[in-house]
């Protein structure tokens, strides 16, 4: 503190004598210096001082300094020291925890979560988060470490917002993943914590983290830290893996495909001298996490195919064996044992191979007993912890789930033929548990036994053969009979409810069981009395509901072999003694009850206190399936019985009824007629359809033929032309035509020639004639001249123009 004070003095200058500056004033000055100093050294010193004050004067620093600190982050990136101070300061003011120093001094104590408020302020601009993310890339310890811490702090306060921002920042998750490879352990470990926060409940981030080889990195770290004996870092790694896998089918698939299941093996190696070494609390935590991890892979909530492949892989990697070893080892803490039993249960649940393996596991006791027997011994033992007993029941249920052979084996141990063996059997333990004085044992055993009967009609009938020797000398009674008697005798609610669930499961879909039950003296009377009772406390309404349910089962699965309690009689009984409406509402009590909602949620038996154990998962399923059937059956019975009471109606009503009956009969007849007609029409339609089909077939055949013929035709034509080419013919014809034309033209030509010749001749003749005329003309002229006539020589000159003018 002295150091800080001297540091402060050097930054702020010596305080003025007399007046001590308040925290707020100091902070204001420092903030001012951070924003306005031009020298880096000054800003850096001021930042360092702010950091020193940020715990005690958190409110002041946060309120005044946020912008300044942000400005430093943007402007002074190059200086690692000042960035470190700034990040550290932000980390302090946004921290979710309260600092001791905070309440000192004179600042007002506020009840609000200061860290969250400042976080909100800081992330209002998402770029701020990106800025911090970018500092993760800086290798310098002074920057990287506070950046990791600041992000963790922001995540703690505003997980959703930060997750969204990281998801959209480019390479945001990748940057965080790179931190796991940092050689400085502090950073690596803090990065683990950061990733645990970041992956909580965000499937997209979980997938990206897995994609970035998270499982490889984490297994590397776990190996480095020494597997199970490693410290809290191993636990952190496992917690992160759990986050990545929980409810994330894609990642579970990836985990399985990446052969990471096999890599879990060293986690289960228990040293031989574990009893001397003891279980350190860290080791207990670590193994707890691994068991959780295994259970996440094979959770009944996963898709079936994923779970069954994981179950197979776990067995092939010898992890089921390792789990069973823990189960049978000495000195294992109870809570680990409980969780291991649960884990074994889920690894074998519904997987026949694993169930068969589990069957063969022997406990190292003397004499050696099957593990199942040893476990059931704990279940019916009052001295064992409650949660352990629940786990055993769950494990036993998982062993029987979809396992007809296992169910048969358990029932077999109760049948007369095998009683000569002296060894303690599962069946004996359960029967003992059914009727001992511990109500919880009764409940556990009833539920366990009911699971040997689920969806297994053969075992329901086999179990009817089981006889119990009660008192010496008296007749042995059947197990079902004894259950029905015990139901009436016991005054413990838990035992009664257990019995009712067992009987319901047993008698549903099993008419012989119903018949035996109906023959038990007082059984029906008990159910009727309970169903019509009106108490509403201590979960009595649940008991009433269950009794109503069992009555309903007696109606629905009744083969009328017991005279007094035929289907009809029983429905009348319900109608008259209880009333249908009351009955239905009593049935409804079951599903309205809060324990129903809890039990129906998951197969695992989960309860804090022994008294909370009332209903069970598989029974809830049965109830859900049958409730509607029962109500429907009773309704139908009621309508039937209405017909029976027609004698009680008045004459007028009777008349009306008869009228209606006639009407109905008429309608019925018409309906039948219509039906007949419909059938005829349908037949006709069928015939027509057949015909149509036939026709269509012929049609298509014809079409085919047609096509074929066409094809053949065209093929034929082609072949024809190729054999006797027609083109020459055409040419010939053309030729002939041409020749004819030519001839014609020649003829014409000859004719024309002839004509021409004639014309020429004519012309010649004419010319000759003309010359002749000329000559005669000249002769006449000459004669005329001779005769002394003056004659113009016009024509002469014209005619003899060539030589005559010169002569003149």
């Amino acid at each position, binding site marked *: 503190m002295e150091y800080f004070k001297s540091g402060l003095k050097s930054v702020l200058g010596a305080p003025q004598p007399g007046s001590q500056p308040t925290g707020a004033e100091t902070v204001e000055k420092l903030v001012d210096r951070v924003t306005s100093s031009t020298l880096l050294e000054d800003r850096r010193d001021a930042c360092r001082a702010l950091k020193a004050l940020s715990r005690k004067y958190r409110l002041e620093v946060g309120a005044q300094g946020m912008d300044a600190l942000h400005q430093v982050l943007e402007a002074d990136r190059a200086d690692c020291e000042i960035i470190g101070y700034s990040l550290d300061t932000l980390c302090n003011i946004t921290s979710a925890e309260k600092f001791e120093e905070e309440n000192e001094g004179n600042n007002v104590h506020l009840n609000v979560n200061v860290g969250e408020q400042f976080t909100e302020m800081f992330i209002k601009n998402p770029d701020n988060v990106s800025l911090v993310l970018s500092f993760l890339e800086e290798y310098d310890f002074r920057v990287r470490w506070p950046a990791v811490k600041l992000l963790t702090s922001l995540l703690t306060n505003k997980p959703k917002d930060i997750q969204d921002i990281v998801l*959209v920042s480019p390479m945001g998750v990748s940057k965080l993943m790179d931190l796991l490879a940092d050689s400085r352990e502090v950073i690596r470990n803090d990065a683990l914590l950061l990733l645990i926060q970041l992956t909580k409940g965000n499937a*997209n981030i979980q997938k*990206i983290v897995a994609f970035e*080889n998270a499982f*490889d990195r984490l297994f590397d770290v776990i190996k480095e830290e020494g597997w199970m004996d490693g410290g809290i870092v191993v636990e952190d790694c496992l917690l992160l893996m759990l986050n990545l896998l929980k409810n994330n089918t894609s990642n579970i*698939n990836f985990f399985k*495909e990446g052969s990471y299941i096999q890599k879990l093996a060293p986690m289960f190696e228990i040293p031989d001298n574990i009893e001397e070494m003891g279980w350190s609390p860290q080791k207990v935590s670590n193994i707890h996490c691994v068991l959780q991890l295994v259970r996440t892979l094979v959770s009944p909530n996963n898709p079936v195919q994923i779970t069954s492949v994981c179950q197979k892989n776990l067995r*092939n990697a010898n992890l089921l064996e390792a789990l069973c070893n823990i189960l049978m080892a000495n000195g294992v803490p109870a809570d680990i044992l409980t969780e291991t039993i649960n884990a074994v249960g889920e690894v074998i649940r519904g997987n026949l191979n694993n169930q068969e393996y589990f069957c063969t596991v022997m406990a190292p006791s003397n004499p050696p007993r099957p593990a199942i027997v040893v476990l059931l011994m704990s279940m019916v033992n009052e001295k064992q912890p409650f949660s352990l007993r629940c786990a055993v029941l769950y494990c036993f249920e998982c062993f029987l789930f979809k396992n007809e052979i296992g169910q048969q084996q358990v029932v077999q141990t109760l049948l007369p033929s095998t009683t000569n063996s002296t060894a303690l059997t599962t069946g004996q333990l359960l029967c003992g548990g059914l009727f001992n004085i511990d109500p919880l044992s009764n409940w556990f055993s009833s539920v366990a036994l009911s699971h040997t009967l689920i969806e297994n009609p053969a075992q329901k009938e086999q179990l009817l053969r089981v006889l119990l020797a009660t008192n010496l000398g008296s007749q042995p009674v059947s197990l079902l009979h004894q259950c029905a008697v015990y139901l009436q005798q016991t005054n413990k609610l838990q035992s009664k409810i257990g019995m009712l669930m067992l009987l319901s499961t047993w008698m549903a879909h099993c008419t012989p069981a119903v018949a035996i039950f109906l023959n038990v003296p007082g059984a029906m009377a008990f159910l009727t009395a309970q169903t019509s009772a009106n108490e509403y406390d201590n979960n009595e309404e649940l008991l009433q509901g269950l009794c109503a349910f069992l009555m309903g089962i007696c109606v629905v699965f009744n083969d009328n072999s017991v005279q007094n309690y035929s289907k009809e009689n029983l429905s009348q009984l319900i109608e008259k003694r209880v009333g249908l409406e009351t009955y239905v509402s009593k049935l409804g009590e079951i599903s309205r009850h809060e324990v129903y909602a809890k039990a129906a949620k998951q197969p695992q038996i989960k309860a804090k206190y022994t008294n909370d154990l009332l209903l069970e998962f598989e029974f809830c399923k049965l109830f859900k399936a049958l409730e509607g059937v029962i109500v429907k059956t009773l309704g139908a019975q009621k309508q039937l019985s209405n017909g029976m009471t027609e004698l009680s109606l008045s004459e007028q009503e009777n008349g009306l009824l008869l009228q209606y009956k006639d009407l109905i009969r008429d309608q019925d007849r018409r309906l039948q007629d219509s039906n007949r007609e419909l059938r005829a029409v349908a037949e006709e339609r069928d015939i027509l359809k057949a015909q149509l089909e036939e026709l269509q077939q012929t049609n298509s055949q014809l079409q085919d033929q047609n096509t074929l013929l066409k094809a053949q035709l065209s093929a034929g034509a082609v072949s024809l032309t190729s054999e006797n080419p027609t083109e020459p013919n055409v040419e010939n014809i053309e030729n002939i035509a041409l020749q004819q034309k030519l001839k014609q033209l020649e003829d014409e030509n000859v004719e024309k020639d002839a004509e021409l010749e004639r014309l020429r001749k004519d012309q010649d003749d004419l010319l000759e004639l003309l010359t002749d005329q000329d000559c005669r003309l000249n002769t006449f002229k000459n004669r005329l001249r001779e005769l002394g006539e003056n004659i113009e020589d016009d024509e002469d000159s014209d005619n003899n123009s060539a030589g005559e003018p010169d002569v003149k």
Partner: protein
Amino acid sequence: MSYAYLFKYIIIGDTGVGKSCLLLQFTDKRFQPVHDLTIGVEFGARMITIDGKQIKLQIWDTAGQEAFRSITRSYYRGAAGALLVYDITRRETFNHLTTWLEDARQHSNSNMVIMLIGNKSDLESRREVKKEEGEAFAREHGLVFMETSAKTAANVEEAFINTAKEIYEKIQEGVFDINNEANGIKIGPQHSPTNPSLPGAGGQGGSQGGGCC
């Protein structure tokens, strides 16, 4: 199951082009005509053989919707191969290829092998993008190209395997740094060059291998 190499793939492309169906056909050999929209990213895996070597393919099938783009971008960096898918019956999915390619090139390592896939080749009658156009686009951008049908399984196997072959060749040529897992390639446990020198690790690997099938 032991393997010589492990390759990480991503499948990208517009929504509804059949990315998830391609993956389902490749990993489970079945076709689901009605498929929900992929939310974020889904994972699938299968073993193949190339050149006599077992190669494990881990495939991340991404959501095509714009809203998931920032999430799917996180997967580019660590992938060795990418299948860029469009729908031959919807031209706009082809038109968007450039954007996808830019995005992929920007965020991935430069050696990532990208295979261009024209899916739904069974719907010839509704075809809007010619095969030649796909080929031309691939040639122009240096991609491998194929038309597939997730419905009939035509070329689906080939698409994934040819991409792996390409990556395998690049490894043989020494282009990929196989020791850097950020490239999306891992060497199998038995094939790691550092392992055989450690007898303890080798023995453990053997016993684990024996137990698993």
